[in-house]
């Protein structure tokens, strides 16, 4: 039986009727057409489906859509503002942190959650924060560099503004 759910997705209130066995990942991708969140394994092993739920990165393949009722979800589509890349996105582009791009949305969101809590992370803290996001292309090095770069940019922006 379908349940009516409401949640904030990328700042907008969404209301929908879903079956309880629908995952948040399916809901985002198939019902809301937010396909930036990727499906890599379905078992919480790879991190491609990472979204930020109430401020914390989670595997959306292991969250039911009904569990997100009343909560706040941020997906990769919600990061850029007015067509401008978020500093983390820009750093990923500039530093060569993207290859196939399939892990990228989850990786960027894990980085976002980290920098929101810890604006000046060490390399180990960055590596730990993205350790549940598997990347087979890059060897992680340029991703780490991008997060470091983004941290500097965000820090600088906040000081000057």
């Amino acid at each position: 039986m379908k349940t009516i759910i409401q949640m904030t997705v990328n700042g907008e209130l969404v209301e929908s009727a879903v079956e309880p066995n629908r995952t948040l990942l399916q809901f985002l991708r198939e019902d809301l057409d937010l396909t930036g969140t990727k499906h890599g394994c379905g078992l919480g092993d790879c991190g491609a489906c990472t979204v930020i739920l109430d401020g914390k990165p989670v595997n959306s393949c292991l969250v039911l859509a009904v569990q997100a009722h009343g909560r706040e979800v941020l997906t990769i589509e919600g990061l850029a503002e007015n067509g401008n890349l978020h500093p983390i996105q820009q750093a990923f582009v500039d530093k060569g942190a993207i290859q196939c791009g399939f892990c990228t949305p989850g990786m960027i969101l894990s980085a976002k959650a980290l920098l929101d809590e810890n604006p000046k992370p060490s390399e180990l803290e960055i590596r730990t924060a993205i350790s549940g996001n598997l990347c087979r292309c890059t060897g992680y090095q340029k991703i780490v560099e991008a997060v470091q770069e983004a941290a500097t940019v965000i820090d600088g922006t906040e000081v000057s503004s």
Partner: protein
Amino acid sequence: MKDFKVLNTRAPRIDGPAKAVGKAKYADDLTMPGALYAAILQSPLAHAKILNIDTSKARKLPGVKAVVTSKEAGLVRYGVSPARYDETLFAHEKVRYVGDEIAAVAAVDLATAQEAVELIKVDYEELPAVFDMFEAMKEGAPQIHDEFPGNMNAEVHQEFGDTDAALAQCDLVVDHTFLNKRQDAAFIEPHSCLAVFDLDGRLTLHTSTQVPHYVMRTVAMVLGIPVGNVRVVKPYVGGGFGPKCEATPLEMSAALLARTTGKPVKMNYTREQVFLHSRARHQFYAEMSLGVMKDGTMVALRNKAVLDGGAYTSFGIATVYYSGSLLGGPYKLKAMKYDGYRVYTNKPTCGAQRGHGGVAHRAAFEQLLDMTAEKLGIDPVEMRLKNIMATGDVTINELDMSSLGMKECVEAVRDGSDWKNKKGKLPKGKGIGMACGFFVSGAGYPIYRSDTYHSTVVIKVSEDGGVATVLTGSAEIGQGSDTTMAMIAAETLGIPLSHVRVVSGDTDLSVDLGAYSSRQTLMTGHATKEAAEQIRNAIASYLAEEMDCSPESISFSDGIVKFDGQPGNFQHIRVQYIKEHRGWTDPPSGEYLTFREAARLAYLKGGTLVGTGKYKPPRLGGSYKGAAVGTSPAYGCSAQVVEVSVDMETGEITVDNMTDAHDCGLAINRTLVEGQMQGSLSMGLGECLFEEVKFDSRGRVLNPSLGEYRIPTALDMPNVKSIIVESSEPHGPYGAKEVGEGAIMPTIPAILNAISDATGIRINELPVTSERLFMALKNKENA
């Protein structure tokens, strides 16, 4: 020195923003109104006769639109190499591995399709199965294919020089054996596709592939559709690394179901099915002997390979050739003998994976080289330098090293890692090791025997002259080929990178064999360069006519056109351009004629400005059997130094530092080159320390998940000191050649050599888990 405006820079990749914001579309992101969802029935048994397939219950399930088996699909045999077409879309008489495809169902949604799959009743008569390659070779082993007695899928016997005689004359002959484990490519995007027929019977197949061209041909052949009526479109692909180099049952099933139902059909593999489909790295057993003189001169190599191929051939024939041919360099040898055997077993099929056929044998050889150096009391770096090939050398198996910065790579990692102060001087438990390797920069021949061009490219300039669009069938799979082609086009046309667009991965656009054997930079790059040159020349000739000068006096760079290096008297062209674009807010300006104006002029004179380019390698290689495998217009090479710490009480290994030097010819994009280097090392590290696809006693994969099949995480991979060595490759566009696969060659042996340095122990079986190393340490202690 180099005078490039676009090439050799760190330009951000052109698909970066789309991928960073989540707008880049991958196959599973595509939908179509009215699409059906399909699922595949796979064999639960490793080896069995199919007695009967009853699909009646599945067909009756509400929501099911079609059920297809071999009866509907037919029995057209396909594979990768026409010499070994040993697969049919669906198994008919028997199944040969757990996962062999038996039927497919299309339904209104995935849940219904999966439910229907479970309703298909198959009666089997289970047959004895064989899972070990050595068991499979024994007399009396279960026979997997009637046509291949002894389960011998392919055999290779090659000899260059008189190996036995050469070995007999050596001062020292060292033997070594090595066993790797079956790997999985573990790309993060599982295969996905969407097939749709139009009203004229034309198929469009959107699919996650590395090779739209080969998928087009195979699907056309298997389903009996004229090739011209199949269009394969590759959206963004979430990694391939080899296993996405061939047409899959997923793609063929989707196409068949789309034809049967008249509706679009969407299909995905689950992660478990990715493991079952496999087509990833073989298990190799290597047995080799290296003969040397006292001074460290290498003389002769005897090399034997046994490959566990799984149930079908896939790329296997090429694989078993590569295991021999890729040891022809980068060291000089006077004799080399190779015997290779690829064996069928009742397991998922192995195919091509990054460093195709070469990785395990390279690992074995580079270990053997270190063992030999140790016995001779020679530093491993010195031993390598003593025997190394240089530009212009031809290997004993007739591979032409038209450029080879091997020596430069070795010296770069030696100096970059401070080798001289570390080798032999580190405390117990710490070790340093090095290794080298090389790889083809594009296979010299297509997979099917043909005179086809390997790449054609079309570049079309917009009517206003402002944008050049590169149209190519080549496959951007994350390696950055679209960016590479855009940069080559921009450099050649003399315009900024932002003025170039790339549309790729579509068989309707051009012929391109795709992303395998590290071929696109060189081959598609050549075709792109040629297409751009054609446009540039056409513009120059129209301009010369208009300006009454010689075409040779005209140069293009940075988006502007110069006449003998001067602005020239072009005002009438500008006036006309501005008149034609009244109301526009970006009129051409500045003291020089812009490319935009020049290209517009060419359009006005000659119609839409199009350039085409093409490439195929010259005839390469020797005339012996199998000489084609290993040939390439060019070879990339690399050297690596790895430092490890070993926990002597637990056997745990931490890779502390990696120094990598790769000769990629001209680095078209320095950031992308480093990305390929670092990614290769990461994959090599995983294969060396963690990765193994494991099976239970009935041939079922024990660890078909990214939780239990362990690829490196961000905490397992160290930073890599990446050194780009740039030789000038005469056969590459602007001197460029490969980096995507050669870079993985030294990684495993460099780690193994470092472990040996740290512990005094030679590990000859992968992966080097903490347990394997600990037990070896224990055994040594007890011995």
